[in-house]
């Protein structure tokens, strides 16, 4: 068990190195010259050259890459061109908001997706199944920014139940988390349904029914325990989808997380911030995958490798 975890950990480090190679190359392909961005338009040629030297941008690329990775290892992501502060500090101040939003989104996802999936699986081919599956498909086909703007219009503007965006109370969190939760819940309900359909066909479910257990107990105790397993792994694998959702939803609702920061950085071609958020997101995805790998054998004995 431990050796598997260690092996996965090693692979994760390699993947992380690969990610840094991509972000490093991407920042070189960016059309904006970082030296010009720092020096400003009116800087003289001599100033530009001295800044270039100071940043080490006159060295050969492999040397620069090694320096880049060393800096990353010291949690130094460089300075934002626009705000002149350390990107690490910026991310540190904004990450909690994104994590809070993510927690809210997972809450709604589970609240919507799992009951809907169970209901659809037990009613297979009947009225509720058809409607739940149709609605879940509509949910996953709806772009998150449209869903967010519609919820904002309806519940914040027309009914006035929630604030028109911003950060602070649970009321501010409700709509952005619901937006992410609805689209995620759509996928979850489909997955829970197909996994529960498989489980409910098993012999042990028939045995449970035959020995006279109530349908509720059969489905929730014997069925759900196995039917839920793919979802547990899914939550870990979903970090990447959340990060993409965070960029969109945070900019719709003015939620001050790293997604909104990334969006603002895109508008201003603030490369260190874009690359910083990308790296943080990649680390999040890698940790999510790792957690899924580590947790799954504990909840699912079938996945314990000898």
């Amino acid at each position, binding site marked *: 068990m431990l050796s598997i975890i260690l092996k996965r950990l090693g*692979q994760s480090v*390699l*993947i*992380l190195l*690969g*990610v840094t190679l*991509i972000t490093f190359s*991407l920042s070189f*392909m*960016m*059309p904006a010259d970082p030296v010009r961005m720092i020096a400003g338009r009116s800087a003289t040629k001599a100033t530009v050259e001295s800044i270039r030297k100071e940043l080490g941008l006159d060295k050969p690329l492999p040397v620069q890459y090694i320096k880049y990775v060393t800096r990353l290892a010291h949690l130094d992501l460089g300075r934002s061109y626009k705000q002149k502060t350390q990107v690490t500090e910026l991310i540190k101040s904004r990450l909690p908001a994104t994590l809070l939003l993510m927690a809210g989104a997972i809450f709604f996802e589970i609240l919507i997706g799992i009951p809907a999936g169970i209901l659809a699986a037990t009613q*297979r*081919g009947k009225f509720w199944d058809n409607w739940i599956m*149709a609605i879940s*498909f*509509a949910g*996953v*086909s*709806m*772009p*998150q*920014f*449209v869903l967010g*703007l*519609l919820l904002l*219009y309806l519940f914040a*503007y027309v009914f006035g139940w929630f604030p*028109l965006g911003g950060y602070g109370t649970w009321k501010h969190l409700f709509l952005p988390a619901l937006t992410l939760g609805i689209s995620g819940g759509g996928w979850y309900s489909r997955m829970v349904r197909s996994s529960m*359909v498989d489980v409910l*066909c098993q012999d042990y479910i028939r045995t449970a029914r035959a020995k006279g257990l109530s349908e509720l107990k059969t489905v929730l105790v014997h069925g759900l325990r196995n039917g839920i397993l793919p979802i547990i792994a899914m939550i870990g694998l979903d970090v*990447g989808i959340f*990060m*993409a959702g965070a*960029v*969109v939803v945070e*900019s719709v609702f003015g939620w001050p997380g790293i997604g909104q920061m*990334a*969006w603002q950085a*895109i*508008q201003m*071609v603030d490369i260190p911030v*874009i*690359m910083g*958020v*990308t790296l943080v*997101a*990649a680390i999040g*995805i*890698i940790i999510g*995958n790792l957690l899924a790998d580590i947790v799954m054998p504990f909840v699912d004995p079938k996945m314990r490798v000898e």
Partner: protein
Amino acid sequence: MGIQEELNTANFKVFKKMGYVVKYFLKNKLALAGLASILIFSLSALIAPVITPFEPDTQFFEGLSLEGAPLPPNSKFWLGTDLLGRDLFTRLVYGARTSLIIGIAANGIALFIGAFLGIVAGYARGWVGTVIMRFTDLMMAFPALLLAIALAAIFQPSLWIVALVIACVNWVQIARVIYSQTMALATSEYIEAVRSIGASWPRILFVHILPHLWPTILVWGTLGIATTVLLEATLSFLGVGVRPPTPSWGGIIYESQSYFLDAPWLVFFPGLAIMALSLSFNLVGDALRDALDPMKRGRN
């Protein structure tokens, strides 16, 4: 039996199987509705000038109120006008072109790259396979939307650049699915048998492996368009998609976002269009998957 004859019988078997698939597919009413809506979207994109009397870029003087605000839906401008006094319905019809071209082109390229790499990795295995699959692992760890945004910021996005950018991030899933299927086939007994009677590798690949992969490619090809339509809309909404004045559904929402509490139709109608197109491809793809999966055909 000559190669040609053998191919003909293989084709015949495929067609006979396709008969069942089509029959099963046609039973799914939602999928038929999706197919109909895809046809309607494609047709209106194709004959856009016939459907609408206006040009997408014309700014109408009477398209704005006296205070300069966009007009709500009325008898002249069916779905209202946008902030510049342009007809929203016309822009939506022309925007369908953008969505469909990018959806089909981007997904086509992604499908080609993904299927190619997946087949090569699954068939060759060894170090070639390892390198390709480790690269897809790396791409999986990379947040797709952020990568697309970074790429779109590097290359000033035109229609085809956006399609390429989306293809660059969307091939990964397909490659993994095709890889595991190819590997399962390549290590199966019948391929062992074919190889032992001396079949060449192109023959094994094209005659004995590829036919089994078509269902997967077809299903992913359809479902992938739904994802691509959403990604294109999202990129445009974030301001890194197709450049104005080219009408794009996500772009229309991006342009009118600051005004949407007063003019909700500018978000509602393009949003509905994005959802309808994406939903249609999802419905058709899902029905195809069920129809092509013999395990599911009996059960559901």
